[in-house]
């Protein structure tokens, strides 16, 4: 924020279009899952440049990453920005959850006194908000017409320049290598929350042997299990997102099984002389199933998987994934007695 624009509805904070180092570092942090649920800005009216009564009104979510991406793209544009209260969630997810909704748009338009601020009666909404906002009801309830803006903020300049008209390229989501890559840190952060318990269970299982429980065996064999978990994560949460369009099969559980099997073979080869045959078999099974499960979880981060499809895939995959985990546990414990 730099200063305030004096308007008939009060002082409106003016924000800059250049992100400073703090914004960029904070953006990297939330991409890594740190403080992601509290990264929000105050809802309400903001402005960019020196807007007047004819300037466009752009509507967005109060997730600060969304807001920063929007303002970064608005160099040499004069516009009002209406920030809704989406509880710090991005546009598309908030629309899916019902916080970026028709009622919220109407409420914020009224609270901001938009009809006294601008002479026109148009709002530019991000297209992905259409999941939660019914344009005709916004018009009916507050008199403002909804113009569906482009999916990506980077197309806004062009969209506004050509008279608020979006071509099909602006209307469709993409899932490029870079767009997939930036999702990996958040996936890893989510996994690490559960990983500790898996590893603790792994160390306990690993310590069981003919002589009862052995801390030495628990540590030595537990480290092998840790390596299998790490390899599974590499397969399911890193390789699958990166290699997504090139992996065989459509079901993510199978894509993850594919990468997990390939990496599991490498792991068993590396452990060939330091583990017995049963141990190698258990490590191989776990790497594959861990990778498969994590890949299946990645469906939630993609912009093209339908819930009906995910549910169908899960009903098929979870039974054999569960069976494989139990078989892996049984073989692992039995291998200490071999």
């Amino acid at each position, binding site marked *: 924020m730099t200063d305030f624009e004096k308007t008939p509805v009060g002082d409106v904070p003016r924000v800059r279009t250049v992100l400073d180092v703090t914004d960029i570092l904070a953006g990297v942090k939330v991409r890594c899952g740190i403080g992601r649920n509290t990264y929000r800005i105050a809802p309400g009216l903001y402005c960019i440049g020196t807007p007047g009564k004819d300037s466009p009104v752009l509507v967005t979510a109060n997730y600060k990453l969304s807001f920063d991406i929007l303002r970064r793209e608005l160099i040499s544009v004069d516009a009002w920005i209406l920030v809704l209260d989406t509880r710090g969630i991005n546009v598309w997810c908030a629309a899916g959850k019902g916080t970026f909704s028709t009622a919220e748009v109407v409420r914020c338009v009224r609270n901001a006194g938009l009809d006294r601020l601008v002479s026109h009666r148009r709002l530019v909404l991000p297209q992905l908000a*259409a999941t939660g906002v019914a344009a005709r009801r916004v018009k009916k309830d507050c008199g403002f017409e909804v113009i569906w803006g482009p999916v990506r903020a980077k197309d806004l300049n062009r969209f506004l320049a050509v008279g608020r008209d979006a071509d099909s390229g602006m209307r469709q989501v993409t899932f490029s290598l870079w767009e997939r890559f930036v999702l990996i840190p958040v996936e890893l952060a989510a996994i690490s929350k559960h990983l500790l318990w898996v590893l603790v269970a792994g160390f306990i299982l690993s310590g069981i042997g003919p002589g009862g429980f052995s801390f030495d065996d628990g540590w030595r064999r537990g480290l092998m299990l840790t390596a299998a978990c790490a390899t599974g994560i590499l397969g399911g949460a890193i390789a699958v997102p990166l290699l997504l369009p090139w992996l065989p099969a459509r079901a993510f559980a199978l894509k993850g099984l594919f990468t997990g099997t390939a990496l599991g073979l490498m792991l068993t080869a590396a452990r060939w002389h330091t583990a017995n045959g049963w141990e190698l078999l258990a490590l191989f099974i776990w790497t594959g199933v861990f990778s498969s499960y994590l890949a299946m979880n990645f*469906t*939630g981060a993609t912009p093209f*998987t339908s819930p009906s499809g995910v549910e169908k895939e899960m009903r098929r995959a979870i039974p054999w994934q569960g069976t494989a985990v139990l078989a892996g546990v049984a073989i692992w414990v039995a291998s200490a007695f071999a």
Partner: protein
Amino acid sequence: MKTFRYLSNVVTLSLDSDACVGCGICTDVCPQGVLAMAGRKALIADLDGCMECGACANNCPVEAIRVTPGVGCAAYIIQTWIKGKQAAACC
């Protein structure tokens, strides 16, 4: 999205051509290019590209489009199985 394909023939999207008034709003809001206009009627041009976000049905003025929207996330679906739809939270 033509470059990515998920499972075939699973989505709940359907369109009632008789009810369609040809306004074309569904083709504007669909982020996957699933719907297209053929003359004065909308049609489903790429059913398997649909991700059931519900934007089209939410904005159709005559309720000609039906789809069961939802969150396509495994962790969320597991929660709905265990805790039920109301208690489940998304990431």
